[in-house]
């Protein structure tokens, strides 16, 4: 549901206040502790951040994607680890349930996810199945009223915090590829689940990933989302929304990088002048501003279409590819504008430079987006 313009504006004001007063001042503490302070998690719960995309009847805010994107572009002007904590509950961890879950499953899990009392993780990637996700080998073998899960999932975001996993597993060993895969809701305290060590990452400290290992993990058949073999169909339905959400995250991060760069350029003096008055610095600032504007315009066009129930897979891939590549370039310029200081951990741009590198990889690499876009173009041309 689209919010009234004045309510959205009022809420965005609250988000800005949260970013300025709480999220940014706690970024260094977040890095130091490798965790988000509890009081900030409480604020995020209070403001409804865990349930932005969960329907109101299950306790969420039920936002349309355009409003969600506008909120994320503000929220993500702070360390991306904050976004990571709320990301899976709003994204694929819960949306599979929202779209294809049955009423009983929704009633049982969505209110807890919306309030943030429960954290959901999405377990798709495996040691042997990354971009080629449909080659996954984790198996779910039917055993009466139950399934037995076996296999290893890799780089699973929020796994150390998760109460719930949406697990993609092969229910039909004889059918290779996507059609043999089903989706399951698995509670994290089910016997037979072990977590690997927290992964040591390049950046995004405070956001955690790890392996999730299933060994004869017995789950009830009622934990399956939708029909057997429909797992990827469910995942595909939430993919577009996820890619547009990530685009908003990239734009928020880019805004922050540019804000820090501009402030630095105005303060820093060399050759007796502010470096902001040097044309080569101005070129970097202007290029960055233009690219952010382009990404923002693309995103809001795509979310508007999505909210009107248009099919936007091609546009979603265009946005995700452009926004994630764009923030990489802006991070690079931000370090350049900061000069030697930009290479030092005392300045946020050094951290953001490492943090934003992930955006070109997860939720479909740039190369996967290129394939999606080109194939979609070719298909359209062939059908016209």
């Amino acid at each position: 549901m689209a919010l009234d313009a004045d309510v959205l504006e009022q809420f965005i004001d609250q988000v800005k206040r949260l970013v300025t007063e709480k999220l940014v001042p706690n970024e260094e503490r977040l890095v130091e502790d490798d965790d988000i302070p509890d009081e900030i998690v409480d604020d995020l719960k209070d403001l409804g951040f865990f349930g932005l995309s969960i329907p109101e009847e299950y306790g969420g805010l039920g936002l349309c994607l355009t409003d969600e994107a506008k909120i994320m572009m503000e929220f993500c002007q702070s360390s991306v680890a904050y976004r990571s904590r709320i990301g899976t509950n709003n994204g694929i961890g819960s949306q599979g349930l929202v779209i294809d879950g049955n009423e009983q499953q929704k009633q049982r899990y969505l209110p807890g996810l919306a309030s943030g009392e429960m954290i959901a993780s999405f377990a798709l990637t495996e040691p042997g199945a990354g971009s080629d996700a449909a080659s996954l080998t984790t198996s779910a073998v039917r055993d009466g009223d139950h399934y037995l899960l076996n296999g290893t999932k890799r780089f699973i975001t929020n796994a150390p915090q998760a109460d719930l996993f949406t697990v993609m597993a092969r229910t039909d060993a004889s059918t290779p590829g996507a059609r043999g895969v089903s989706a399951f809701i698995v509670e994290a305290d089910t016997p037979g689940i072990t977590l690997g060590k927290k992964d040591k990452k390049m950046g995004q400290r405070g956001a955690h990933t790890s392996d999730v290992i299933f060994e004869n993990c017995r789950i009830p058949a009622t934990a399956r989302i939708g029909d057997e073999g429909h797992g990827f169909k469910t995942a595909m339905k939430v993919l577009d929304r996820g890619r547009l959400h990530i685009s908003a995250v990239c734009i928020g991060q880019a805004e922050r990088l540019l804000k820090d760069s501009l402030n630095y350029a105005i303060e820093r003096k060399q050759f007796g002048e502010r470096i902001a008055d040097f044309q080569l610095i101005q070129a970097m600032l202007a290029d960055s501003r233009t690219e952010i504007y382009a990404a923002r315009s693309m995103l809001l066009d795509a979310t508007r279409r999505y909210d009107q129930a248009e099919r936007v897979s091609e546009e979603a891939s265009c946005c995700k590819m452009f926004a994630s590549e764009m923030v990489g370039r802006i991070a690079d310029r931000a370090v350049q504008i900061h000069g030697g200081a930009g290479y030092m951990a005392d300045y946020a741009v050094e951290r953001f430079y490492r943090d934003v590198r992930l955006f070109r990889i997860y939720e479909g690499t740039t190369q996967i987006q290129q394939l999606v876009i080109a194939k979609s173009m070719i298909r359209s041309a062939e059908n016209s």
Partner: protein
Amino acid sequence: MKILVCIKRVVDYNVRIRVKPDGGGVVTDGVKMSMNPFDEIAVEEALRIKEAGNADEIIVVSIGAKQVQEQLRTALAMGADRGIHVETTENIQPLTASRMLLNIAQSEGVDLVLLGKQAIDDDNNQTGQMLAALWDRPQATFASGLSFDGGKATTIREVDAGLEVLEVDLPAVVTVDLRLNEPRYVKLPDMMKAKKKTIDVKTLADLGVEAAPGVSSLGVRPPEGRQAGKKVETVEELVKELQARGLVND
């Protein structure tokens, strides 16, 4: 207990203030406006008093053009029960404002009026005090703590010598300081609910008050830019420099 909270629409505290070229005030066109931060603390305190079971109703009032309803809506979204908008585009000074507030406090029969200690635009720090005088009721200003017992309120004030504790009989006027509380974040569902709460619109005539400014502003100008400092190499040089300027004794 019924509480009246007075709020003012001001230029947002994050905005860098610019003076109009003609010196006739500060630029407000296209500038982000917000609730005076001290007033926001007053609203928050009223909510806490109500949540603790010491108040039944919170009325928020603001004076100004149509746009002040945005700030009233924010206060309603925070949890105030209803709003009163005194609509005027005239220049309203503290004495006029306090006359209007007196009228409302009396007609509503409130037990407590909470205001920010001052508004961050004009920094007058007068309205609460003038209201108490006109109303002939006790005042406690710059409160950094507030509690109730029977018909009395106890306030803590941060003064130069330490903390001063005042007890006042209700009804009373209390103006609040920065460290009284930290205003809550407003939740989205509460913002939507606030749209359904009522805001009564009144005119100056309804309240029997005329704008009649008693103070005229002669001009506004920005502070002088800072002059470049001077660097010295040693403590001796520094002392010499300070002595030369008569800032320390020989």
